[in-house]
């Protein structure tokens, strides 16, 4: 009887394990099937490198280069803002802050992570967007820059918590060794701690960027959504994610437009997958 119960439980757990893989495979297959259909009419290179995205013109022009560049621009901007601040914050929490400040900061970071992205987008829309418009005398504040700033806030909690973890797990003896040679606290942090934690910090950065690339709601609200090749941070852009979210509702099922949106999904999937794998490699290198 007991053996029978063991058997049932074992198989149930096995089923749960298989189920998750099974669903992933199903989703993946569906994405591939719908996405690859677009390549019957558009050559993959024309799709990836095409400079204009007019999905409902006749015939539709399906080039996603402006969208890819839009995503890259916003992501790079967000990375430039969030990496120094995030890593700096992690160093402060892990190494410098007194215990009480540390607790408060950590709680604050967790709170930041808990804010729904649509709320952040909304706040950005009424604060950063008019501010950017005023400061830089732009025709509109809905720009790549505004999106980058907002997304930086979203990447920050990921970067801070993982980087802090990486710094925390550097053996104490490394730091002592550096101090014993006459290093100042900052020299020990800069030359020993950061170097020893580098793979973990890189992983933190990659995961933060992964979050930015996949973010949809906030970017859709504050980047302006103009599907043109962006020439500066102060111009409106449209990202891959925002395109899918904005247009899926109105695309006719089975049309080229519809398939093209799925193909964008594949592109996004490949990018996120690449980033996650890189982050994973860094994390494993650390162990």
């Amino acid at each position, binding site marked *: 009887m007991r053996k029978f119960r063991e058997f049932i439980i074992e198989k149930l757990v096995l089923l749960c394990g298989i189920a998750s893989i099974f669903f992933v495979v199903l989703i993946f297959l569906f994405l591939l099937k719908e996405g690859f259909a677009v390549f019957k009419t558009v050559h993959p290179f024309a799709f990836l490198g095409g400079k204009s995205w007019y999905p409902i013109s006749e015939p539709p022009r399906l080039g996603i280069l402006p969208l890819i560049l839009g995503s890259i621009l916003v992501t790079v901007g967000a990375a430039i803002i969030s990496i120094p601040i995030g890593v700096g914050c992690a160093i402060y929490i892990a190494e410098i802050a007194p215990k009480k400040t540390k607790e408060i900061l950590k709680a604050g970071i967790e709170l930041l992570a808990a804010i729904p992205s649509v709320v952040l987008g909304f706040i950005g829309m009424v604060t950063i967007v008019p501010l950017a418009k005023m400061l830089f005398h732009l025709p509109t504040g809905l720009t790549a820059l505004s999106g980058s700033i907002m997304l930086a806030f979203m990447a920050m909690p990921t970067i801070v918590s993982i980087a802090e973890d990486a710094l925390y797990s550097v053996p104490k003896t*490394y730091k*002592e060794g*550096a101090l014993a*040679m*006459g290093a100042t606290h900052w020299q020990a942090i800069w030359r020993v701690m950061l170097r*020893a934690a580098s793979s973990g910090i890189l992983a933190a950065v990659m995961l933060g960027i992964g979050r930015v690339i996949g973010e949809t709601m906030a970017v859709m609200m504050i980047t302006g959504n103009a599907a043109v090749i962006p020439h500066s941070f102060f111009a409106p852009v449209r990202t891959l994610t925002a395109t899918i979210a904005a247009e899926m509702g109105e695309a006719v099922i089975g049309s080229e437009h519809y398939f093209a949106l799925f193909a964008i999904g594949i592109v996004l999937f490949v990018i996120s997958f690449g980033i996650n794998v890189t982050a994973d490699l860094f994390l494993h290198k650390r162990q």
Partner: protein
Amino acid sequence: MVIFKIEKLNVRFGSVHALRDVSEEILEHEILTVIGPSNSGKSTLLRTLNRMNDLLPNLRITGTVELEGENIRRMDVEALRRRVGTVFALPLPLPLSIFDNVAYGPRMHGLRNKKKMAERVETALRQAYLWDEVKDRLHESAFKLSGGQQQRLCIARTLAVEPEVILFDEPCSGLDPISTAKVEDAMLKLKQRYTLVLVTNNVKQAARVGDRTAFFLNGELIEVDKTEKIFTVPRDNRTDDYIRGRFG
């Protein structure tokens, strides 16, 4: 010449009284070995000498420690640690090449000249008796060295900063007997140029390398004398019991 002059030193961590009224002098070019069971305060003494204890919370220190007449509490802590280097129990090479491990300290203190750096690294490796074993592979990872070589690399790293005193905190506790012998050889030759303080759990090691030996028990300095005397005619029974292995 007296290098360290310790007077009525008391160290407490919270409610733990780690060192009680310790007074002692450390002389130039000697190896002072410090023995005693665990929790006897010998590592605390070592960590007080270059203020590594400062990192610990709830620390209270009374009494004075002078390095060549200067109170170490009034010295700049980084300057103090440059003059008083430490070799830790476990060899801790940094994840860098052999050369860069040794060059680390000087580089940190602002040495930029490549030729001088190469000389400094070679001198340090020679003094640690590692040069002949590594001279052809200076740019390999330090992790490829054996445990004993790694520990001598750490000694070289400490020497490269050009300290006056080197504190050894159980430097051979993780090493096999052959590596231990090599590290001991290096220490015996180093005392011509430096002053060495060696904390060890290995009583035989103290007998082999120490000029003078200090015996600590429960935070008290029980006695300190020439090593031969401690090991042949100790004044205190507790010292006798410890070195004979009756407790420990």
